[in-house]
C-alpha cells in the first residue's frame, strides 16, 4: 500500500534515476522495475477457470501458464508442454516442462489432469471453459512429465484449445470455489508473476516469481489497473499514474505518436469486422423494397453492398489506420487464408449497376444494426457505412444498441443487416464459419449465431470433412475452399481486421500481439 501511495512526481523522479542507473550498470534488471499497466476492461474473477472472457484470461496469463500458447503472431508454440505428438487419431501425448509452482512445489502431470478436469466442475460459470475441454474424454498420466489426452473423435484443434486452459496447482486449489480463489494461498501458478492482492474493478497487484522456469522476469512488481474509460486511461498514462496502457483511444493516436515521452505500437489483430446480411428469409424486418421482397436474398445486392463500402476511407478517417481492409475470413498467417480473395475496390458506380441489374435501380431502405460499446468505434463506422450505402441509393438508417441488447435482438432475428466482430481464438478460420454461417444444427453445435440465416449444403459438406481432418496441410486446403464458398456467396461481408494498440512511457519496449491479450510480458524495460 505504501509503495502505491507515492506521488507520481516521486515515481517519475525515481524512474529517471533508474534510467540513469541502467545506463551505468551492465544489466537492465539491476533496478526496481515497476510496471503499472492499465487494461481497458475489468476482470470479473481471479479464478482462471471461472469466466471465459478475454480480460480475465489476460489477467490470469501473468500468473498462470498453459500447455500450449499463441506466440505474438498467433502461431501455436510450446509453453508448459515442451512437445506433443499424435499417438493415433484420437490420442495425443504431451511432454511437460520441468517447472515450479509459486509455492515451491513441482509442476507435474497430476496438476495437468486436475486443471483439465476443473473447468467442467465449476457450476456457476457465466461462460465456461468447458468448451475447450469438452472434446477430452480421458487423461492418462504416464509419468510426472508425460500425459496422454484422448478425445472422443479425431479432433485437430486440441492444441489450439489448450492455449485457453490454465494450469493451476492441484494442492493449492483443490476444493476451492471461485469466489474464494483470490488469495495468495490459492492463486498458485507457474507464471513469472505471483499474486499479491486484488481489488475488484480497480487493480491486481503482483510481484516477481524468482523460481520461474523461464529465467528472471523483467519486472519486480506489476500492478494492473482496470480503466474502461478511454479518457481516464489516456490521462493516467500522460500524468504518470500508470506507465503502460492497452487500447489507445483512436482520436489520441496521432498525439501519442508525436509525444517524445511515449512509445506506441499497433498490430493487426485477428478480430474480423463484418456485416451479416439476412439472405435466408423471404421477408426481413429491417429491409423495405418497392417490390415487397427481401433484396438481400440476391447475391448481386450483397456484392453491391460489398463494393459500395469505402474501406480505405473508414480506415483513414475513422480508425487512424487501425482497420486493415480484407475480403478474407482469416489473417494471412492463419489457416484458411485464401490469397485469391482480394479486397474489393470501392466502386459506387459498379454497385449501382449491380443493384439495377438485380431489379433495384432506385435502391431500397435498410436498417443497419451495430453495437455501440463493443468494437473499436463501432457506431461511428456503422454510420459511415450508412452514408456510403445511402450514396448508392440504399437508404440506410443506423440502429446503435449496447452489446447486451444486440445479442438478444440478433438471436431473435430482429436484424436484416448488422455489423459485428469475430475474434478467432483458434488461430484458424473454422470456428467462425461453424458458428456464424453454417446451417443451424443443434446436434453439431453449429450456426449458433447465424444472423444471416444463410444455409448452404455444400458448405456443410466441406465443414464436416475438414473438422476431423488430422493432417494440417490437407485441412488448410479444405478450409481455404470453405472460406472461398462463404465469401463468394457473400454469406457475410468481411470489412476489415481491427488493429490493437499499446502505449507506454519512454524507456519501455512494447512487444505487440495479434491475439489482443495484453500482459506484463507485452512490455519490457528497454535495454
Amino acid at each position, binding site marked *: 500500500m505504501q509503495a502505491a501511495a507515492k506521488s507520481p512526481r516521486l515515481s517519475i523522479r525515481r524512474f529517471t534515476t533508474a534510467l540513469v542507473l541502467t545506463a551505468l550498470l551492465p544489466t537492465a534488471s539491476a533496478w526496481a522495475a515497476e510496471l503499472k499497466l492499465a487494461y481497458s476492461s475489468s476482470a470479473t474473477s481471479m479464478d482462471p477457470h471461472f469466466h471465459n472472457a478475454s480480460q480475465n484470461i489476460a489477467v490470469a496469463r501473468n500468473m498462470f501458464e498453459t500447455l500450449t500458447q499463441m506466440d505474438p503472431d498467433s502461431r501455436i508454440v510450446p509453453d508448459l508442454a515442451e512437445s506433443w505428438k499424435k499417438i493415433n487419431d484420437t490420442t495425443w501425448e504431451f511432454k511437460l516442462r520441468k517447472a515450479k509452482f509459486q509455492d515451491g512445489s513441482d509442476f507435474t502431470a497430476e496438476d495437468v489432469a486436475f486443471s483439465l478436469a476443473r473447468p467442467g466442475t465449476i457450476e456457476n460459470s457465466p461462460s465456461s471453459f468447458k468448451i475447450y475441454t469438452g472434446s477430452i474424454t480421458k487423461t492418462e498420466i504416464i509419468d510426472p512429465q508425460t500425459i496422454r489426452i484422448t478425445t472422443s473423435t479425431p479432433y485437430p484443434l486440441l492444441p489450439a484449445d489448450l492455449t485457453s486452459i490454465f494450469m493451476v496447482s492441484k494442492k493449492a486449489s483443490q476444493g476451492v470455489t471461485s469466489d474464494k480463489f483470490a488469495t495468495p494461498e490459492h492463486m498458485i501458478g507457474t507464471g513469472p508473476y505471483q499474486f499479491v492482492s486484488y481489488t475488484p474493478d480497480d487493480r491486481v497487484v503482483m510481484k516477481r516469481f524468482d523460481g520461474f522456469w523461464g529465467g528472471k522476469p523483467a519486472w519486480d512488481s506489476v500492478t494492473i489497473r482496470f480503466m474502461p474509460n*478511454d*479518457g481516464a486511461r*489516456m*490521462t493516467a498514462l500522460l500524468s504518470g499514474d500508470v506507465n503502460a496502457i492497452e487500447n489507445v*483511444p483512436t*482520436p*489520441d493516436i*496521432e*498525439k501519442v505518436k508525436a509525444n517524445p515521452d511515449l512509445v506506441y505500437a499497433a498490430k493487426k489483430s485477428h478480430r474480423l469486422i463484418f456485416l451479416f446480411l439476412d439472405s435466408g428469409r423471404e421477408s426481413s424486418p429491417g429491409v423495405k423494397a418497392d417490390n415487397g421482397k427481401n433484396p438481400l436474398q440476391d447475391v448481386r445486392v450483397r456484392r453491391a453492398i460489398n463494393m459500395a463500402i*469505402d474501406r480505405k*476511407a*473508414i480506415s483513414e*478517417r*475513422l480508425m487512424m489506420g487501425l482497420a486493415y481492409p480484407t475480403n478474407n475470413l482469416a489473417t494471412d498467417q492463419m489457416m484458411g487464408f485464401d490469397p485469391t480473395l482480394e479486397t474489393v475496390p470501392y466502386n459506387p458506380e459498379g454497385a449501382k449497376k449491380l443493384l439495377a441489374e438485380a431489379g433495384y435501380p432506385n435502391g431500397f431502405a435498410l436498417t443497419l444494426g451495430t453495437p*455501440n*460499446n463493443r468494437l473499436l468505434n463501432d*457506431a*461511428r463506422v456503422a*454510420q*459511415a457505412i*450508412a*452514408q*456510403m450505402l*445511402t*450514396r448508392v441509393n440504399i*437508404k*440506410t*438508417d*443506423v*440502429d*446503435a*444498441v*449496447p452489446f447486451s*441488447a444486440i445479442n438478444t435482438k440478433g438471436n431473435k432475428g430482429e436484424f436484416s443487416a448488422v455489423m459485428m466482430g469475430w475474434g478467432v481464438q483458434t488461430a484458424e478460420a473454422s470456428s467462425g464459419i461453424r458458428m456464424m454461417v453454417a446451417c443451424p444444427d443443434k446436434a453439431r453445435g453449429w450456426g449458433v449465431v447465424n444472423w444471416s440465416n444463410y444455409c448452404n449444403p455444400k458448405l456443410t459438406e466441406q465443414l464436416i470433412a475438414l473438422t476431423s481432418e488430422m493432417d494440417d496441410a490437407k485441412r488448410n486446403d479444405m478450409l481455404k475452399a470453405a472460406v472461398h464458398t462463404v465469401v463468394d456467396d457473400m454469406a457475410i461481408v468481411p470489412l476489415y481486421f481491427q488493429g490493437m494498440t499499446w502505449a507506454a512511457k519512454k524507456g519501455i519496449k512494447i512487444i505487440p500481439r495479434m491475439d489482443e491479450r495484453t500482459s506484463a510480458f507485452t512490455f519490457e524495460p528497454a535495454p
Partner: protein
Amino acid sequence: MSEITPTTPLTLPPVAKGERLLLRQVRDLVASPEAAIGLAVLITLVAIALLAPLIAPQNPYDLMQLDIMDNMLPPGSALGNGATAWLGTDDQGRDMLSTIMYGMRVSLGVGIASVLIASVIGALIGVLSAYIGGRFDALIMRIVDLQLSFPSILIALVLLTVFGRGLDKVVLSLVFVQWAYYARTVRASALVEKNKDYIAAARCLEMPQWRILVRHMLPNCIPPLIVVSTVQVAHAITLESTLSYLGVGVPVTQPSLGMLIATGYSFLLSGNYWISTYPGIALVLIVVSINLVGDRLRAVLNPRFTH
C-alpha cells in the same frame, strides 16, 4: 367578483385587472438585468432551434449531404462541396453549426414536450386528488411521495435501458419521472382554492363537477405551475443530456446536445475541442437562461418576494 358567469374563470383578481397585472409582471420580470438577458438569449435560441431547417447550412440527418471525407475539420475549414464549416465538423463529417442547431431542436423539443405532457397529467391528477380528497387523495399522495423519494436519474436510466433508444421513449421516460412534481404543486394550491367561497358558490349553483374543476380550480393553480414548469424544462434538458452521456437516450443519428458533448469528449484530449465545446456552450446557454428567467419568475409570481 361576485358575478358568476359559467364561461369565464372565477379568478382572483378579475380578467381586466389581470391583463394589467400580466403587463406589470412582464415589466417586473425584465426589470432584473439577469432575467432580461436570460429572456433575450432564450428567445434567440428557441428561434434558432425552430428555424433550423430553414437557416442551417446543412441537414445533418440527411446522409446524402454528409461526407466522411469531410470529418474532423477544424472551425472555418472548407467542406468538399465548397461550403464553409464555421464551427468545424464532427467525426461523421457533419457541419457542427448545423448539428448544434438541430441538436438544440432535439434538446429543447424533448424538454418542452416532456414538461407539457407531464404538467397536464400532473395538474389533472393533483386537482382531482385535492377535489376528491379522502382515501383517493391519500393514495395519490403516497404514490407521489414514493416517486419523489427516488432520484429521477435512476428511474429514467432504468426505464430507458428497458425501452431502448428513441425520441418518443426519452420523452415518455421524462414524463414518467416528472409528473409527480406537478401533481404535488397543483394539489397544494388546489387545496387552498377548494376552501374558498367561490367554489362553494359554484357548487351551490349545481355546476357540473368537471366544470368546477377545469374552469375554476385549475386556472387558479396555474401560476405556481408555470414557475415549476420553467425550471423543469431546464431540468429535463439536463437530465436528457446526462442520460445521453450514460449511453441511453436519443438515436446516434439524431444527436441531442448532450450526446454531441459525450461523443465529442473523446476527441477533446487530442485537441479537437470544437466537437464537444460548442454544443456544451449551447447547452449551458439554454439551461442557464431558462433558470435565470425561472428564478425571476418565481419572485414575480410569488407575492411574498415582490418588492
